[in-house]
């Protein structure tokens, strides 16, 4: 019996020693002390405690870098140019970098650990991004898999954004997710009211954020968002516009159209909205209303595979082909600006068609987060 107690005491002692070593390592070896992050060559300097990732440290300082995976190194969005102090590129970052990014010091901020002073370069617009707390004011079912969420900012705050931009929505820890995650969604609302935003969101099967939004979020719940982000907005030219969107890709187009109406913008514009069946069609009335409010705007919903028995008298076909036919008939396809939002496949296909018709790549706009 005595040897058993001795053995137990020895094992417990070893365990306690290991635990103490871990605590010591955490406090002493992993203690990087205070470090300084210099942003944009001295424009902003942040003094902070080292040890965390650059992404989480910047987020704690209310500087929001777009990221969709919550810092797990799987989305590849949180790229930041590090001029000094980050050490070599990690194997976890390599798949996300092209040759130019590697040579210019671009890093995934979630993978860069703050061990010493850093010098980084950020686009100026990222420094204006803010975090907002909002309250979910309304949820509207548009189709079997698409909803609109209206979020009112609290404390009388307003979000100044350019129509076409997007925000990041935080899905908190909930029954089906042990971690917080951010996902990006375009603003769809009328920018005349910047005290609230609307988002049109399609459910991603088993997606962490959309499962939260569709199955758990209720009217009255608080929602944390940050933004605005993105370079997708209407350019200030007189070129005719072709909008091509599929499904929830209608969101930024709707916001842009509201703004065109508010600013009496009478540019020629045609919007091809692609859906598969008539059950996928939504916001048709609102889009038709824009036709009466905007002198030279035309809305063309395109159903690619109407379900048997559906009463569909509109255009049938693949949205990219219908848009191509339209541009060919115009005779001045190359003068158009193309604005695209939808699935990666639709965007890729649209870019190919627009380029083939002579629209140069610098006149084709879509969000990189797509």
């Amino acid at each position: 019996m005595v040897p058993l107690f001795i053995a137990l005491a020895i094992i417990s002692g070893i365990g306690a020693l290991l635990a103490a070593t871990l605590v010591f390592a955490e406090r002493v070896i992993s203690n990087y002390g205070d470090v300084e992050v210099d942003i944009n060559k001295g424009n902003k300097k942040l003094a902070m405690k080292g040890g965390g990732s650059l992404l989480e440290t910047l987020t704690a300082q209310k500087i929001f870098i777009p990221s969709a995976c919550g810092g797990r190194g799987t989305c590849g969005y949180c790229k930041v140019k590090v001029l000094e102090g980050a050490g070599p590129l990690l194997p976890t970052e390599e798949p996300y970098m092209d040759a130019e990014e590697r040579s210019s010091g671009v890093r995934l901020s979630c993978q860069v650990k703050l061990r010493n002073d850093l010098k980084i370069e950020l686009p100026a617009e990222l420094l204006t991004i803010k975090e907002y707390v909002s309250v979910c004011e309304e949820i509207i079912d548009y189709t079997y898999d698409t909803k609109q969420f209206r979020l009112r900012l609290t404390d009388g705050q307003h979000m100044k954004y350019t129509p076409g931009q997007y925000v990041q929505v935080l899905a908190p820890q909930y029954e089906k997710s042990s971690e917080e995650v951010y996902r990006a969604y375009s603003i769809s609302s009328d920018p005349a009211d910047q005290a609230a935003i609307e988002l049109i969101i399609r459910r991603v099967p088993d997606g962490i954020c959309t499962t939260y939004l569709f199955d758990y979020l209720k009217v009255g719940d608080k929602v944390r968002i940050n933004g605005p982000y993105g370079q997708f907005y209407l350019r200030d030219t007189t070129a005719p516009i072709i909008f091509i969107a599929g499904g929830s890709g209608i969101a930024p187009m709707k916001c842009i159209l509201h703004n065109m109406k508010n600013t009496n913008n009478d540019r020629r514009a045609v919007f091809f909205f692609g859906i598969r069946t008539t059950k996928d069609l939504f916001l048709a009335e609102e889009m038709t209303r824009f036709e009466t409010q905007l002198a030279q705007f035309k809305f063309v919903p395109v159903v690619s595979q109407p379900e048997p028995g559906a009463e569909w008298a509109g255009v049938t076909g693949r949205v990219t082909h219908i848009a191509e036919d339209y541009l060919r008939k115009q005779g001045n396809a190359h003068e158009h600006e193309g604005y695209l939002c939808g699935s990666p496949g639709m965007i890729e296909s649209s870019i190919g068609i627009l380029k083939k018709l002579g629209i140069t790549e610098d006149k084709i706009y879509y969000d990189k987060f797509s």
Partner: protein
Amino acid sequence: MKKSPQQRKLERLLQSSKFSASGFMGTDRRGLWEIIDEDAAEIAKRGKTMEEVAARMQQLTDLAEQGLGDWIQVSKNLHVAVDDNRGMIPCPWPHRVRCMKRITTARHIPSNTGVRWSDLNIHLIKEHGFFEGKGSPFRIEPGVLIDIIFSKD
């Protein structure tokens, strides 16, 4: 059989919601290796290999991709469609693989039965022989999958 720390860590990851809202194990009470072994036996019983199954799934996904969401007729009895979403999902195994969030649906017209898979499913089957646990949203029954994707006209 005693599990290694790596195996235990992997099983925890597969059960968690770290990568997908419902995890990969569903309500299956079997262990990971039991699921893999039983599904491998079913595949072998049907005279196929994991590589053949994954290759056919990939072939159908590539065909479906051309439809940009529309149904594409593969044969008299089989049509497929793809639904791609933004973003990527990583493989839970400890290697650096991530797949597009693209979902392919294959429908066998005469029997009106269907099966769906993600790009990650193809990878999990090809590289790890894993069809996910029963009750998981993306669990694929190997027998049903083979019946549909290798169906004859």
